[in-house]
């Protein structure tokens, strides 16, 4: 190290110090530093450096680890100072398999730094890492993957891909975490791998450990932030894990979930009238109360208005709130922005306290937090009002912090606190920091425009400042006064006169220009002074700044129009001066104005309107915060800070008008009825739950609420339990919640539902949405279709896997299979002759249409007979069995008033005219065209005395007809239908 320095110094030309053996004294290096930095690139390949490297090479080649270590340390020190050590690559890379851990680590450091430049040589080291990937020790596997993925050599992309894929299913969560880290590295190296990487991300997103969660979301954000659909299934899990994820991961997850929530939930503030009410509540009610029972409040609000917060939305808000107490400012900020963007107005207040706390932190943290507070305080002033005094400025604050605090104070000003704030401002005006004083004057101007009550007070204060000794202060005041006067000029001719006098003294161009403009604009209020001012200005015209010259011309023109007797000659003089000015803008302006105001034969119609043009009423400028409307950027982001879109910024989407299907977030939880360990369960207990819920779940708002409360109380009782195994307990809770979620709220018959019957192991993700050439993966649409099947039909619960989803059919020995949608022709492309297979019967299941109790003795069951319905090929035949369990006879059974969705048709069975004696049963067949949907067909079943409302809901499987198709045919068909939108798919 010392030697290196010596050589450099020689280069710079100070030979006298080149003999120092120890590291340089600080001052010397300080003095040289700048030159060194610049000299570096030129120095590196110098012969002197080469010689030094020879000596290092020798050390690296030696057998002694201590020598190697010494050499590596020196090399790393060179790298640290930004010196080129690339010519040592061959010597260093040899040591990649060194036994000494420190040497090895330093070699890794070197390798990662230079591999990009020496790609061929870097390949030598690959085999070592590949060996490391197979090591039984998880930490070695992880570190091998880490280094392998950090070497930016395109040739090894396939190796990296393979390694990442393998590591993603490693037993150790630490290795999986490393795999997640490796994903963005590979992506930046070769973006063509995106599709494959998304698969890996999808797999890792399903991971249940806290260690992986942060890293994989990071990878998600870098590789495929647009694939928000990947989050659905993991949403609740992420919410529940959040508190145990390491802090950096928390930030990334919270930011991502903010975006997610904006696409999936409805705005909690859509109901404006109620909003105000709740805002008031937040204002009067104490903060504590507010925060304690957000849930109860939400519930009570919900009763009054149609908007019901999605329980998942609430889950996110509830689970992020504790993180406001994090010691990490970035986490606090992330939660704050989440609340700002997602929470109902009444609840946003909780973040103020935490943000104010951050103001005690380092200067740079303060700076960022204040920027965000400034934006927030415009939208939600009430939130920070209680903390007004925390934004008071100390003379020791750096200027940039002072100005931001001033901004916040101005935003917070209202009728009640303005007097306090103005008193503070008075102190600030006497500060030594002139930039700050100027900003304060502007702030006073803004307060004056916003709050009419204090306008006169402010104006008087500012006028007093006009006699200030500091010119900057005076100039700033003039500019602000000009803006204020524009609002009510008539009353203030005194001030205008006073300002006219200032033109003699004040030199700041902006201020002079402002005064001239004022006098010109209101020359009718000061008829005696204005021409005099113009006279003076005409005298000094040639020495003025451009901006002042333009205003002189302006003043001259206005006076000419209003008082041409006194100012005609002056105007001519000024215009003549301007005509020969050096600045073309001024020459232009003079020419333009002369044509406009001085009537000649040539001048056209415009001349008549000159007065209107110049002396039109001008709207007063609106003094507003520079932070207004900055909240269209996600708060806390770099883009928000810069007020410009940064590279890679993900737009925060607007709330959707209609809530997307909430059921997409339902997750199947297997073998974990009450959260007893969620790994490895293979049984299908969930279908039981969903089955039982199917009878009652019409998915109404009130029901959701109940469930919400239930969840809450359950959690509280759990709180009292021992907290020893915190993360584990959380896990349980999470899974239990998820189970409840899917059980309680499953809206029957919606497409795109999510209980996935195919994944046997909950850790395995659902199949990806694109068709993948491997035949074992099923297209999503089929998956979703088939899901409906399991939900309504408990007997079809897959105990094994895919083929059993359709009992009966799979047992057919046909070499390849296709399922064709049989309900309607809408999906079928062309009426191609196809061989319809005879339906095979497994156990045909019967469903209850009308229970004996509900039907007062009449019970009705139905089943799908799986035969074509005679008369209409699009209809599904439904076999109905009616049995009379009453004591009396039942007459004239018929169907009436079918309520169907558009497109659905129903072919009623002919009225059973004959009497149905007690104990008798009757069988009828009716046809329903479900139009390929799993929506229920509702109709009334009438007897001679009663009407019963019933509905038939088809499992998707019943809407299909078995068709024989060769493999080629199938592929062709698939190609035509694009990416798996059809209902057919090969088996095996």
């Amino acid at each position, binding site marked *: 190290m010392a030697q290196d320095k010596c050589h450099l110094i020689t280069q710079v030309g100070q030979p006298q110090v080149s003999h120092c053996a120890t590291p340089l004294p600080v001052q010397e290096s300080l003095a040289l530093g700048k030159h060194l930095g610049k000299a570096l690139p030129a120095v590196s390949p110098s012969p002197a450096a080469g010689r030094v490297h020879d000596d290092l090479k020798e050390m690296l080649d030696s057998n002694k680890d201590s020598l190697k270590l010494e050499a590596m340390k020196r090399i790393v020190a060179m790298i640290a100072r930004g010196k080129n050590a690339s010519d040592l690559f061959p010597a260093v890379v040899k040591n990649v398999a060194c036994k000494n851990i420190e040497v090895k680590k330093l070699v890794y450091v070197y390798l990662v730094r230079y591999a990009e430049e020496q790609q061929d040589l870097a390949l030598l080291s690959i085999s070592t890492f590949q060996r490391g990937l197979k090591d039984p020790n998880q930490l070695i596997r992880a570190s091998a993957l880490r280094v392998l993925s950090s070497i930016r050599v395109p040739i090894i992309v396939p190796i990296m891909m393979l390694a990442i894929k393998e590591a993603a299913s490693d037993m150790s969560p630490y290795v999986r975490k490393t795999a997640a880290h490796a994903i963005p590295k590979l992506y930046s190296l070769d973006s063509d791998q995106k599709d494959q990487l998304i698969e890996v991300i999808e797999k890792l997103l399903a991971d249940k450990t806290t260690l992986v969660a942060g890293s994989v979301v990071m990878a998600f954000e870098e590789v495929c932030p647009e694939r928000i659909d990947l989050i659905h299934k993991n949403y609740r899990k992420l919410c529940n894990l959040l508190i145990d994820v390491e802090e950096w991961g928390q930030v990334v997850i919270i930011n991502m979930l903010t975006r997610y929530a904006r696409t999936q939930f409805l705005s909690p503030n859509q109901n404006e009238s109620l909003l105000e009410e709740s805002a008031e509540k937040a204002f009067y009610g104490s903060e504590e109360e507010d925060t304690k029972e957000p849930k109860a409040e939400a519930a009570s609000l919900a009763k009054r208005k149609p908007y019901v917060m999605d329980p998942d939305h609430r889950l996110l808000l509830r689970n992020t709130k504790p993180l406001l107490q994090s010691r990490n400012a970035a986490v606090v900020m992330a939660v704050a922005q989440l609340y700002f963007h997602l929470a109902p107005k009444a609840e946003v207040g909780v973040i103020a306290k935490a943000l104010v706390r951050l103001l005690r932190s380092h200067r740079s943290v303060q700076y*960022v937090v204040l920027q965000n507070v400034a934006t927030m305080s415009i939208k939600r002033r009430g939130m920070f009002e209680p903390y007004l005094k925390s934004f008071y400025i100390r003379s020791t604050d750096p200027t940039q912090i002072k100005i931001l605090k001033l901004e916040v104070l101005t935003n917070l000003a209202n009728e009640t606190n303005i007097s306090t704030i103005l008193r503070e401002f008075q102190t600030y005006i006497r500060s030594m920091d002139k930039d700050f004083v100027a900003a304060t004057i502007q702030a006073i101007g803004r307060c004056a425009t916003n709050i009419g009550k204090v306008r006169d007070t402010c104006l008087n204060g500012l006028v007093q400042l006009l006699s200030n000794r500091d010119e900057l202060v005076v100039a700033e005041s003039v500019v602000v006064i000009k803006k204020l006067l524009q609002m009510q000029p008539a009353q203030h001719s005194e001030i205008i006169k006073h300002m006219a006098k200032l033109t003699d003294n004040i030199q700041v161009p902006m201020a002079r220009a402002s005064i001239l403009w004022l006098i010109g604009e209101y020359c009718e209020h000061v008829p005696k002074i204005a021409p005099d001012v113009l006279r003076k200005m005409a005298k000094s015209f040639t020495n003025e700044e451009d901006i002042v010259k333009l205003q002189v011309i302006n003043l001259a023109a206005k006076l000419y129009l209003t008082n041409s007797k006194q100012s005609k000659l002056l105007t001519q003089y000024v215009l003549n001066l301007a005509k020969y000015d050096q600045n073309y803008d001024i020459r232009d302006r003079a020419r333009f104005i002369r044509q406009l105001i001085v009537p000649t034969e040539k001048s056209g119609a415009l001349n008549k309107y000159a007065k209107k043009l110049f002396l039109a009423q001008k709207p007063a400028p609106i003094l507003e915060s520079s932070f207004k409307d900055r909240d269209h950027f996600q708060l806390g982001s770099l883009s928000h800070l810069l007020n410009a879109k940064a590279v890679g910024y993900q737009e925060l989407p607007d709330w959707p008008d209609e809530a997307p299907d909430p059921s997409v977030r339902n997750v199947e939880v297997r073998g974990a009825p009450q959260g007893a360990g969620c790994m490895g369960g293979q049984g299908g207990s969930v279908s039981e739950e969903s089955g039982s819920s199917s009878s009652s779940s019409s998915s109404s708002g009130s029901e959701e609420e109940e469930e919400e409360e239930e969840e809450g109380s359950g959690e509280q009782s759990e709180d009292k339990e021992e907290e020893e195994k915190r993360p584990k307990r959380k896990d349980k809770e999470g899974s239990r919640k998820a189970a409840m979620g899917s059980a309680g709220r499953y809206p029957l018959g919606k497409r795109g539902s999510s209980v996935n019957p195919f994944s046997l192991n909950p850790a395995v993700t659902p199949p990806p949405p694109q068709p993948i050439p491997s035949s074992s993966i099923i297209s999503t649409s089929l998956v979703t279709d088939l899901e409906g099947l399991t939900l309504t039909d408990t007997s079809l619960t897959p105990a094994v896997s895919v083929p059993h989803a359709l009992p009966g059919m799979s047992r057919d020995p046909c070499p390849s299979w296709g399922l064709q949608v049989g309900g309607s022709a809408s999906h079928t492309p062309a009426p191609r002759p196809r061989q319809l297979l005879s339906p095979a019967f497994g156990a045909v299941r019967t469903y209850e249409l009308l229970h004996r109790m509900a039907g007062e003795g009449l019970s009705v069951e139905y089943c799908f007979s799986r035969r074509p319905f005679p008369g209409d090929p699009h209809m599904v035949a439904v076999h109905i069995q009616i049995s009379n369990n009453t004591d009396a006879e039942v007459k004239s059974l018929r169907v009436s008033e079918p309520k169907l969705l558009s497109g659905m048709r129903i072919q009623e069975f002919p009225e059973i005219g004959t009497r149905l004696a007690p104990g008798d049963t009757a069988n009828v067949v009716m046809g329903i065209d479900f139009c390929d949907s799993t929506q229920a067909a509702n109709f009334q079943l009438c007897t001679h005395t009663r009407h019963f409302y019933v509905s038939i809901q088809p499992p998707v499987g019943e809407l299909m007809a078995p068709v024989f198709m060769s493999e080629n045919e199938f592929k062709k068909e698939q190609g035509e239908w694009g990416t798996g939108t059809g209902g057919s798919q090969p088996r095996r």
Partner: protein
Amino acid sequence: MIHSLFLINCSGDIFLEKHWKSVVSQSVCDYFFEAQEKAIDVENVPPVISTPHHYLISIYRDKIFFVSVIQSEVPPLFVIEFLHRVADTFQDYFGECSETAIKDNVVIVYELLEEMLDNGFPLATESNILKELIKPPTILRSVVNSITGSSNVGDTLPTGQLSNIPWRRAGVKYTNNEAYFDVVEEIDAIIDKSGSTVFAEIQGVIDSCIKLSGMPDLSLSFMNPRLLDDVSFHPCIRFKRWESERVLSFIPPDGNFRLISYRVSSQNLVAIPVYVKHMISFKENSSSGRFDVTIGPKQNMGKTVESVVMTVHMPKAVLNMNLTATQGSYTFDPVTKVLTWDVGKITPQKLPNLKGLVNLQSGAPKPEENPSLNIQFKIQQLAISGLKVNRLDMYGEKYKPFKGVKYITKAGKFQVRT
């Protein structure tokens, strides 16, 4: 996320660079130097600078600029917080975060940076994990290393990274088991000209030094936990327990760490322990002014106010000051115009006073503003908010630890306007 890091000293030398992705040329720092020049004062360098291809996010700590290079959108606080964590780690490892310390330990610094970030995303930032991976340098160890040729890099693989409690390493053993808590409270206040309080609040922290063997599970309770208005926690604290019982329950990290920091609500009346009488005036049309300041204690529950120091940034027009102090000593730096008066302990019988003449630049207009006085002080064995630790219980281990709590009150940002 974080692409590269440059460490720059006050005179503008880049003395360390580290890249986590492709190398970014040092020339990117020119934008930073430009901003630095514009800002004049180091305090005013904007933390975020936008350049054509990169964004520079920087912090200033202990006379070093930590400048990180960012290429795409990232929450700025994320980076800032991380950089502070890096500085804290250096502090922790080398005892100070200075240019010399970093240069002397450049290899360890490099190893640390390598572990702390992977591809720009934070990997291991917990001090306990890092110390398992890379041992901090001590004199003894460096002697041993030079003799035996062993290294600073731990050869045991870190297990903390894999556990549910990443902040604590496994297999901790001490012969004396001790747990100390320092309750440190700082008073932030602005006192106006007439002596009335414009703004005052109490900010507190509990710093802990815990040397306990095994896996102790501690719970710390307060006599009056309701005092704490806003609290932020070390990740080890179980949040739910605090919410429900107001008890701090945690498995502590090993060694020194900050357990909580809190704020006592500003609604409560804060007892200001000192008062200041001042008379500062500059005469019109003459090149002198008068300066007369007296500091006195208010009733403070019988505790003495110690280590009182007053610093004043005098206006630029001040050339020199001729003062006499009845107690302590004062210095005036004519370059930075900073007056420092080291008072020491205040005894109520004889109030310390600093009085004398101010020499102003002749001809210059008299300063408009009177400077504000920044006061520092310390009061031992007192938490000004009245917060009291009730008890500390330990579960999970058999031995009896030695426990201690210390209270101290300090002045935070304590400013008197004149």
